[in-house]
């Protein structure tokens, strides 16, 4: 895949207003609103700013990745996917560029949140930050597939509710806004079965908590397998219709 192509793909995403609002502005504003007002409180055994740093990082990076779907849907509606089929760009590389862009947006979101965290006195160690970033990269894989799936199923018009609603529910159930279901019980199990939970957990390594348990890896892997299969089917159905 050509770097020039990727560069323009990135540039047009950066110019997109929706990206700024949902992926950058929204998590930052909420982080400051909630964590700023409660900088000395604790939540789920962590300092509240740290908890919200992890929560908003999971929300923002998830949004960055899933909004790939919005771009795919818009390009399908514009007939751009047909235009691209008249170029040497393979579908695989098309999706690679989209996912790579999603990851770059996710990194920008995390960096900004780390800076915001520092201004509220969240102290971070380089090792912990590195570990979190790696876990987030893995944890976003099912969301990359989710984006591609949604991008082939949904029209741009209904993308707003699907993204705003769906992602918010996933973020909430995963504990991005605060722990769900306590330490055990049904809601706790539901929360753990959702990949967002593990994105939030990835943030908790910032304060030296241990990385994912075996459950985490299994949940992320299972969602990846299912969503990749769904995305592949949605893509094939879409190209057959032309």
């Amino acid at each position: 895949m050509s770097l020039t192509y990727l560069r323009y793909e990135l540039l047009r995403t950066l110019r997109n207003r929706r990206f700024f609002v949902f992926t950058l502005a929204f998590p930052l504003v909420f982080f400051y609103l909630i964590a700023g007002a409660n900088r000395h409180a604790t939540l789920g055994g962590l300092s509240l700013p740290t908890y919200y740093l992890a929560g908003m990082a999971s929300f923002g990076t998830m949004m960055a990745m899933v909004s790939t779907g919005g771009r795919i849907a818009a390009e399908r509606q514009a007939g751009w996917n047909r235009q691209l089929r008249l170029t040497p760009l393979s579908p695989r590389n098309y999706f690679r560029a989209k996912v790579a862009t999603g990851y770059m947006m996710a990194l920008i979101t995390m960096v900004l949140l780390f800076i915001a965290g520092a201004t509220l006195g969240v102290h971070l160690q380089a090792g912990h930050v590195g570990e979190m970033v790696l876990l987030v990269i893995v944890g976003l894989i099912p969301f990359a597939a989710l984006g591609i799936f949604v991008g082939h199923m949904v029209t741009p018009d209904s993308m707003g509710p699907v993204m705003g609603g769906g992602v918010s529910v996933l973020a909430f159930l995963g504990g991005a806004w605060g722990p769900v279901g306590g330490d055990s019980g049904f809601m706790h199990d539901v929360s753990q079965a959702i990949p967002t939970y593990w994105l939030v957990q990835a943030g908790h390594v910032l304060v030296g908590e241990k990385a994912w348990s075996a459950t985490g890896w299994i949940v992320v892997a299972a969602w990846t397998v299912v969503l990749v299969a769904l995305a592949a089917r949605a893509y094939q159905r879409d190209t057959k219709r032309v």
Partner: protein
Amino acid sequence: MTITDTVTAAGIQLGGLTKSFGAVRAVDNIDLVVAPGETVALLGPNGAGKSTTIDMLLGLLKPDMGDVRVFGMAPAEAVKIGAIGAMLQTGQLIRDLKVRELLAMMASLYPNPAAIDDVVDITGIGDIADRLTNKLSGGETQRVRAGIALISNPDLLVLDEPTVAMDVEGRHVFWTSIRRIAASGKTVVFATHYLEEADSYADRIVLMARGRIVADGPTTEIKATVGLRTIRVTLPNVETDDLSALDGVKSSERRGDAAVLHCTDSDVAIRALLREFPAASDIEIAGAGLEQAFLLLTGDQESEDLS
């Protein structure tokens, strides 16, 4: 070595091409050969099978039967080396890029792209090259789309009803560019349902109706065939056989008190009509729509009342 050097004798070869959608046979056993450097118009009304043919030519659609070769290759291969450039019937541009950036992005996908400045020049988009793609008018968008079709420096340019979204002025500017492109030796195939466009810009017209090629020849020849006129006249109590027998009239039909005469020469026909039937009133002479011309040409009775 350029791609042009390796091109074999035939530019495009379609053999026995057939495609159905459910019970509808959109393209029915089409054979077509286009030589390199030719400018060919696929002319026909909506539903004639032009777009389906083009989609198969480009490899976007798999034929049920038949074979497509572009410069001796399968369409996908020709696309991969950048030998085909196409402007599809529907389609917008992706947003949030400037026109020049979009062209650079597309150029980066090809092994031997055209120079961006050359493409900007030939499509006349210099004044909008630094504008965002989501801030263009319909005509400007079409010219940028033509630019995208040219960015691979293709040997074959395919345009599917390219001027539908344009005003008269935009059309003129657009076709002037296409003429320059055709003059540079490229093969151009375009679909249209405007006889004037086919007449003004093609060397050869391939006339399509209901999935078939009903005529294929030099532009002047085809124009004479489909350039029929009709006379509509209020004239009760006259047999259509008597009307059809008039000089200059090819056939006629009755619609209540009115009759419609399909004329090979409307000047001769109107004189004959007034001489033989002085009672004729409410006379209208009109150029036949393509649909009408095709129905006459194909002699298809069952759907004559479609129009």
